[in-house]
């Protein structure tokens, strides 16, 4: 400390001390902010473990959601979530990859690509409940009832912007020399993209899909009035379908203790699945950048 102190003879030593004091104070505050941020993460995860871990048993994965007051599991919710997520990702990913390809490989600085980029970034953060309303208006009203396919469509709309964004970013990282070398061999543009660009950007693009899966597997709002819920283990896409987040929502807000306990267990499963996916995505992209 004394080393940094200016010579005691200078007239503005008090001023210097005040400036340093202020700096130390602000830096301590920013340290405290980081501590608070990390503390929230730890507290939330610990709460989930404490309240949810006790409920984890084989029955959770083998039995359907129970009526109040009896034993049961979350099988139908887990299956419903998996089905709708799988269909949503299967529908949204190709659209996202192709649109991202257009922006990175063909449109690039063109007017259309800039507009699509702007709109896509907005869709990326747009409220997901609005997507639910949209699918309700377009699909549910015309079908006349809630259905698993409507839920999957809503999820697909959320997948698209995530995949567009990562695909474009990852394709932009591919050195243009690679493309030029391929083109100079006489390969058509589409072959260059499919065989060279996609190969080079593969890991990054898979990361994008993983992030999209992580994003939609916790989505609740767009499913509330598209897939609704289903007490029974239905795999019929034409009928209402339950999903883990919607069941958590319904059970947590119920007055029954065993429903609330199941909600916590479901919350634990969803959170750790989502965190595992996003950590996996990070590891993959870190490996690819080496």
């Amino acid at each position, binding site marked *: 400390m004394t080393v940094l102190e200016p010579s005691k003879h200078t007239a503005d030593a008090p001023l210097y001390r005040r400036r340093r004091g202020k700096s130390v104070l602000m830096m301590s505050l920013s340290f405290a902010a980081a501590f608070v941020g990390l503390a929230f993460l730890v507290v939330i995860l610990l709460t989930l473990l404490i309240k949810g871990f006790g409920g984890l048993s084989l029955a959770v994965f083998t039995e359907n959601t129970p009526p109040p007051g009896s034993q049961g599991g979350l099988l139908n919710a887990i299956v419903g979530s998996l089905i709708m997520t799988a269909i949503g990702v299967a529908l949204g990913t190709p659209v996202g990859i192709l649109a991202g390809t257009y922006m990175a490989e063909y449109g690039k600085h063109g007017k259309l690509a800039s507009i699509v980029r702007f709109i*896509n970034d907005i869709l990326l953060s747009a409220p997901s409940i609005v997507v639910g309303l949209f699918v309700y208006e377009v699909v549910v009203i015309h079908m006349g009832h809630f259905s698993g396919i409507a839920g999957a469509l809503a999820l697909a709309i959320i997948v698209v912007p995530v995949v567009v964004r990562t695909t474009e970013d990852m394709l932009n990282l591919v050195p243009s020399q690679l493309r030029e070398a391929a083109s100079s061999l006489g390969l058509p543009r589409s072959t260059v993209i499919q065989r060279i660009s996609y190969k080079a950007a593969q890991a990054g693009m898979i990361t994008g899909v993983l992030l999209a899966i992580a994003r939609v597997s916790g989505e609740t709002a767009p499913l509330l009035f598209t897939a609704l819920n289903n007490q029974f283990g239905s795999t019929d896409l034409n009928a209402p379908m339950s999903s883990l987040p919607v069941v958590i929502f319904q059970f947590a807000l119920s007055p029954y203790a065993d429903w609330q306990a199941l909600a916590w267990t479901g919350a634990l499963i969803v959170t750790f699945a989502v965190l595992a996916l996003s950590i996996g995505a990070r590891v993959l992209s870190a490996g690819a950048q080496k």
Partner: protein
Amino acid sequence: MTDLSLQAPSGLSAAAEARASKLRSFRIKDGAFRNITLASALLVLAILGGVILALVIGSALAFSTFGFDFFVTQAWNPVTEKFGALSPIYGTLVTSLIAMLIAVPLGLGIAIFLTELCPPVLRRPIGVAIELLAGIPSIIYGIWGLFVFAPLLQETVQPFLISVFGHVPVLSTLFAGPPYGIGIMTAGFILAIMVLPFITSISRDVFETVPPVLKEAAYGVGCTRWEVVRQIVIPFTRVGLVGGVMLGLGRALGETMAVTFVIGNAHKISGSILAPGTTISASIANEFTEAVGDLYTSSLIALGLILFIITFIVLSIARLMLMRLDKKAGV
């Protein structure tokens, strides 16, 4: 574009013909692939257009019935079919404001910590940990907020606020009791935790764009760490910071599930931020499946349209500001 070999005179060897047909199929596939990618890009625009169109059509009944009154009426009565959007709009804005008041200083603080103070070894792990907060689904924040955070506030922070500000004019209305636990303030706090990672990661990214030579020069003339941050780093990154804050605001405005759990769903504007209220997204989530009658449904869709327009404007501003920054960085 035309390949010479395609116009080769007939009567050539089979090999040449095979080559010509191969090239033709190349060309067709090439064009087809381009058009498919173009169509997908247009589909992204169509999604946005479709969302707006569907909301406009769905809300037409509510707007034609109530007209402009819809925006300025507080009543929300499914029995008499009188609906007004004022209290959800109020709740949305106030909860987001509370969230930003907490999350902006906190997020900036973490970003300063990560770029100026943190030992390089810890930088990445801590950054990732904060970003993981963004990955936790919003329903988890909701259930945690309802069962852990709200009771905590009800027992500690809220009685404290009531007792401290209870006799101060103006503030006594703002913190008028009783402490419900759930309400506008709790929703604002939960939103703050949720948008914190967005603000943090964007602030950190823009802080890292400050050329080291600028900071070194400031340290060289004897600035303290805080003075370097305050006088060099923040002014240099102002545009990007505002963009990041607006992005966080866009998230806070549209956030649904976490708020639905802790807001209390009361269609009523109360002077106290401890009282229950509602937001646009929470009203839709709570009531949409139970809404009977076209007017009720249409009013909820009208709320959705209002929300979409507000977030669209906020997010557009955010993007434009961040784009300005990208251009600057590109030069």
